[in-house]
């Protein structure tokens, strides 16, 4: 560090703890052009100036790649708006103190040396932040938008949440991250220690304890939200204990989504997982919010690990069957992934490797092949092309067998659910009909990303199901299905229903009433007819 025109200038070099054998660290101060092939730095530097008063003003000269770890600086440098910072390559950060910025830059330097400039696979490295400086570091990295360090600071604060003296200076989204990183039990204990009853909660609302969005006049609403949150956490703890006895427990995630630090307006304005439960709890029925939880739980299961567990061959598979049979009678909403539709379409004929259908034209002859939807969704071969059919020996048998095995198990799972629901099941039942029978309370039909055309079996199956029960479906999602106008017209026609008998009776009564109202055209005509009849 040296003094230049009254300003401390610090040139950041690579940290000494990093082994020089893997990374060239000689580039930092001098910016020489002799760089090895492994260095991620280009030799270009920018200046970051922090502090407000001249005495405390410090300027850091850092490699531009390190500075770009900050989202704010990167945006200023790359902006087409020709900011002063863009032109002068100097960014002034008056609200950040030099020690905090130094720590942030140290982290950025280590991060870029370990993980490179654009590397999605990150290597973990040790970076110590002391309790005395963590708040300043959090504020600095939040302002500079250094996401990994912000995450690290939030996790550390979550670990020592009971030692935080005040939440006043912590930004809202950082509070949310801290709440997410905090363990549920610790969160509940901490909240109980801070707000042991509603009166204290009322005092807490008026204090600076994280309720930054509190507005005068909202006291009742805030206290109500507090008691609701207490109840939610209490209910969640009970439910968690119930779930912990089984193999399937994701309640921790649901509890982690609670945000006791923010105002109720923000709580109810954002969609963490616990919010549906809060609404149900507000209605006074604990069973309903647990039902909502089941929906979230099954959806997570289907989204993440359904297929893996389906073919795990371990205890998880039998547990999945047991859990599935227990919850499917209650399912009303389920977003089904396209892979599931592919599996349910798969019959006994072996497939090629399971891949997502590509967006190509469809050959009608192939589309009609019910046993091979994946093959059907491949682009059609032009007529006359001398492309020899692939022999079975050239296919990958392991992948085929595995896919077929999973398909059989998925179908068996749904067929068992349909039989348990008392629905007749045939082996030739198409997938949408099978799902509709297996999940008798399902009200959401989601065929997004399943590429269809007007003659594909999946689309015809969809139409048949919609025509059979048009009033059943509350949500219909056909995103990215290559729907055409004609197909959409067919879907809407399948969903058309006659007016309900009650409405029909109302309409008829309205017409009769209109006939009796004096002065109306129809009533006058009817009276004229009556008079004519009397005269005759």
């Amino acid at each position: 560090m040296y003094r230049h025109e009254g300003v401390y200038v610090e040139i950041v070099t690579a940290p000494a703890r990093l082994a020089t054998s893997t990374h060239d660290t000689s580039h930092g101060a001098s910016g020489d052009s002799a760089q090895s092939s492994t260095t991620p730095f280009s030799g270009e530097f920018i200046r970051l100036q922090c502090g407000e008063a001249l005495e405390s003003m410090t300027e850091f000269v850092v490699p531009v790649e390190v500075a770009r770890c900050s989202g704010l600086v990167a945006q200023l440098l790359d902006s087409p708006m020709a900011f002063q910072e863009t032109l002068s390559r100097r960014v002034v950060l008056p609200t950040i103190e030099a020690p905090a910025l130094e720590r942030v830059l140290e982290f950025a330097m280590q991060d870029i040396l370990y993980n490179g400039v654009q590397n999605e696979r990150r290597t973990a490295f040790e970076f110590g932040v002391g309790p005395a400086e963590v708040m300043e570091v959090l504020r600095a990295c939040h302002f500079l938008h250094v996401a990994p360090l912000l995450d690290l600071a939030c996790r550390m604060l979550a670990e020592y949440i009971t030692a935080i003296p005040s939440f006043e200076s912590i930004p809202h989204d950082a509070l949310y991250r801290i709440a997410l990183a905090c363990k549920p039990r610790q969160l509940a204990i901490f909240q109980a220690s801070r707000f042991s009853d509603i009166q204290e909660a009322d005092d807490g609302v008026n204090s600076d304890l994280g309720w930054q969005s509190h507005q005068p006049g909202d006291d009742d609403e805030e206290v109500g939200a507090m008691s609701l949150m207490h109840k939610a956490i209490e209910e969640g703890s009970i439910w968690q204990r119930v779930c912990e006895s089984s193999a399937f427990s994701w309640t921790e995630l649901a509890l982690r989504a609670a945000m006791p630090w923010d105002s109720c307006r923000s709580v109810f304005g954002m969609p963490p997982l616990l919010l549906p439960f809060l609404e149900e709890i507000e209605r006074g029925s604990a069973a309903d919010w647990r039902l909502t939880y089941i929906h979230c739980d099954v959806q997570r299961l289907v989204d993440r690990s359904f297929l893996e567990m389906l073919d795990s061959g371990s205890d998880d598979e039998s547990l999945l069957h047991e859990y599935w049979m227990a919850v499917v009678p209650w399912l009303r909403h389920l977003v089904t992934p396209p892979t599931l539709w592919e599996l349910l379409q798969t019959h006994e004929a072996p497939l090629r490797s399971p891949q997502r259908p590509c967006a190509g034209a469809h050959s009608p002859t192939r589309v009609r092949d019910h046993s091979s939807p994946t093959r059907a969704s491949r682009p059609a071969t032009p007529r006359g092309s001398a492309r020899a059919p692939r022999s079975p020996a050239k296919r990958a048998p392991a992948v085929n067998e595995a896919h077929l095995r999973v398909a059989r198990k998925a179908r068996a799972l749904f067929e068992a659910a349909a039989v348990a629901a008392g629905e007749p099941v045939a082996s030739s039942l198409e997938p949408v009909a099978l799902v509709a029978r297996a999940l008798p309370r399902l009200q959401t039909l989601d065929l997004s990303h399943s590429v269809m055309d007007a003659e594909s079996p999946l689309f015809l199956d969809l139409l048949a199901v919609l025509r059979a029960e048009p009033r059943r479906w509350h949500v219909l999602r056909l995103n990215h299905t290559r729907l055409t106008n004609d197909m959409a017209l067919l879907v809407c026609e399948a969903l058309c229903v006659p007016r309900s008998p009650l409405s029909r009776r109302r309409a008829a009564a309205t017409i009769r009433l209109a006939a009796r109202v004096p002065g109306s055209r129809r009533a006058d005509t009817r009276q004229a007819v009556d008079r004519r009849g009397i005269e005759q």
Partner: protein
Amino acid sequence: MAEQLDASAECALLRDNWPNLRHNTRLEHLSLAGNPHLFSAGWLFQPQFRLRDGLLGLPRNLELLDLAGVRLDNQTVEALPELCASMPRLRSLNLSRCSSNSEAFRCLADVLERSEQLQSLILEGTIGSHGSRVAELCRGLRANRSLTLLDLTSAGLNVHEFEPIVEVLRSRPVHCTLRVAQAHAELEPLRALSDERVTVAMP
């Protein structure tokens, strides 16, 4: 004359009782996003399928209409206010990445002016850097009292084009969340926007 009137009444009764999508009161969410070939001929909005005249219409209880990525032609755009007015419970309208023009934004402003229930309007990547579109959007926002979420992520607006939207949102009596791209959220005018009326959020 009496027979004619009776016949027309019976026809009206028959037409009203004919199977119609509008009578399907259960359907609440209809999501048709990402189908670029849809609506290119104004399918749902053609005169023979209009709500009052023909066989088809959208369900009256529809709460969410997701048309993201759907190509909106002029016929569709012109019918948009009438369509939205026919769905009194519509709460969320997604027109993200719709290829639209200034005429579309004039109609969208009409939608905002008329709607009393619309809470969420998603225009991700739709506006582009056109002053007239922003002006139309502001006109609609000024008259609207129900919108609580306006998504302008990747809308292609610069700071100066955001300013009138900011002013309009501030002048409204309801709290609104303005969702913008991360790059824009860092800029000073938008940072200063967040207050008790408006929250600037990043996706």
